């Protein structure tokens, strides 16, 4: 789509330089205001990247490869104005240094690819992505569509510029002086290639890079998604409300509370939870032996256990409040009381932790890209 010298008449070239100039002017002023001193290094290095990305051979369905333009991804990551400057810089070096695209046609190429491409990609991306989350797959679709329409918008402009040449510029004998094909040939000939191969390459690259950045470096997608929190910040908000992070814990607590009455169904006592009195009770001794592979328990309670058992008397001995006569109800009440105590202790512990390290629930200063 890089129009070489000789395809467009000098007047068309001049007109398109004129059309591009105000966009360049606005882009330079806007980005300069936004980026201040960062403008030069950012645009320079990103233009180098745009140049290299145009040399990538992107495999497209069907087995062939095509070169992408990169207008979509530049616009999504940098915003439309910085993207215009970046792509124009890359196109300038392509034209002057590598002879890819003409010098007289540079205004036209910048207008088509840098300006129309960037603005179309940005508009489509913003509209389709809406306020979806940075990592939402809707953004991948929006980016892919933005890239596809951007390159096709640029191609359509190029096709029209080339297609009007034979209508306006002819020699005395009627031979077209520049691009020889009229609109009815130029537009379909160029658009078929771009609606298929080149468009698909752009679609793959733009969608693919956004999908990659969502996984690897979501902060780069931040600029053109104002007001949409980064995934990192979403978790930070959750920590502050304390709900999302603690959700598994609350679920477990709820389950335990519901399942607490199961303890009533278990026969006898849990292994090892014997009291001093159990060693004297024949029924209890039988249970202990059964639970211990028929090894008979010692005749008397171990002296250590006997000595220590008086030190601490649980408020609900054997999980049974003294005023309760129904064993089942007492068991449930004990369970609820136990769980409640655990929750209170947890809350107390986290409150102390926050007092000691106040920065814990605040976002760590996010590294802001450009």
């Amino acid at each position: 789509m890089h129009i070489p010298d000789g395809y467009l008449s000098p007047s068309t070239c001049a007109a398109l330089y004129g059309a591009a100039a105000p966009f360049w002017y606005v882009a330079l002023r806007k980005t300069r205001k936004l980026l201040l001193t960062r403008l030069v290094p950012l645009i320079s290095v990103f233009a180098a990247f745009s140049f290299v990305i145009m040399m990538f051979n992107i495999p497209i369905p069907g087995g062939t490869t095509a070169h992408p333009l990169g207008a979509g991804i530049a616009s999504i990551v940098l915003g439309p104005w910085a993207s215009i400057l970046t792509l124009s810089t890359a196109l300038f070096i392509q034209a002057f240094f590598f002879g890819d695209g003409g010098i007289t046609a540079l205004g036209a190429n910048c207008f088509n690819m840098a300006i129309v491409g960037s603005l179309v990609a940005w508009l489509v991306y913003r509209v389709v992505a809406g306020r979806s989350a940075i990592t939402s797959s809707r953004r991948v679709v929006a980016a892919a569509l933005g890239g596809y329409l951007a390159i096709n918008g640029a191609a359509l402009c190029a096709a029209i510029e080339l297609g009007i040449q034979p209508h306006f510029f002819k020699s005395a004998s009627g031979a077209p002086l520049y691009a020889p094909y009229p609109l009815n040939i130029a537009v379909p000939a160029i658009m078929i290639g771009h609606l298929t191969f080149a468009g698909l390459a752009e679609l793959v690259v733009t969608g693919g890079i956004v999908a990659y950045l969502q996984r690897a470096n979501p902060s780069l997608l931040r600029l053109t998604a104002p007001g949409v929190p980064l995934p990192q910040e979403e978790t930070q908000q959750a920590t502050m409300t304390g709900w999302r992070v603690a959700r598994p814990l609350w679920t477990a607590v709820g389950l335990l509370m519901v399942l607490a009455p199961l303890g009533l169904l278990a026969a006898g006592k849990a292994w090892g939870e014997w009291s001093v009195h159990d060693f004297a009770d024949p029924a209890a001794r039988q249970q202990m032996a059964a639970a211990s592979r028929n090894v008979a328990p010692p005749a008397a309670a171990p002296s250590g256990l006997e000595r220590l058992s008086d030190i601490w008397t649980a408020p609900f001995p054997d999980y049974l409040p003294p005023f309760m006569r129904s064993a089942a109800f007492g068991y449930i009440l004990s369970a609820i009381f136990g769980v409640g105590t655990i929750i209170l202790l947890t809350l107390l512990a986290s409150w102390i932790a926050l007092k000691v390290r106040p920065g814990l629930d605040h976002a760590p200063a996010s590294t802001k890209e450009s």
Partner: protein
Amino acid sequence: MPAKRSGTRGFLERSTSSFVDAMEHAFYAEQTARADGLLQRVDPRVKLVGILALVAAAAASRSFAVIAGLLAIAIALAALSHVSFRVLVNRVWVAVLLFTGVIALPAPFVTPGLVIWHLPLLGWDVTEQGLASAGYLVLRVETAATLCVLLVLTTPWNHVLKALRVLRVPAVLVTILGMTYRYLFLVLQSAHDMFESRRSRMIGELTGRERRRVAAASAGVLMSKTFDLSNEVYLAMESRGYRGDISVLDEFQIRNFDWVMLGAFALVSIAAFWLGR
């Protein structure tokens, strides 16, 4: 590049060879720009303005003879500037023919006009206007491309950029263009290394879906690297006292020889504009 000759060239091989081609082009340009030829001795500003005027004359001309004359001048300048004929043929003329020649091919058949010949077997009509149109396109593109390549092959890139100040290009843009060119090779090298290392670790064929994923992820990695690089460059600039003000050193000096060349460029382009009306 051996990959170029192998039968099945995947996207990795194709991309790597594009990167190498670009680096080769730059290397060759730097070499010829240092040679002691006619155009190398001309002040970059005179050369830039002069060659742009010749390109514009070629673009505006309605006469075959004038465009062909400008092409002849370009070839003569190349010979006097130690730009080898072989390079012109390979890098410019064949490349242009492969692209523009193919595009111009149907023009003689589809352009309405005076039928001068019937194509045997197919029975297509060749029109005089169509033939002329294809001729204009190919000749014009060849001439402009030859002139442009002369500018780059005989001038160090930094000088081309500084010369742009004559055309009132803002200093900030000149600086951006210079830095882009400088970091272009770093990014190219980076991309080349990524693709090479990927190739060296691959033993089988990737499916289409995997290929696309690899290509997009490589581009994404390269973009992340680019951002890191731009941050580092920014910090390096700031630590050296950069505050956003840009000044470009204009160390060029016009000598008598440059005035003569400026006159020659002016004379040729005005004559070409006049004769090619």
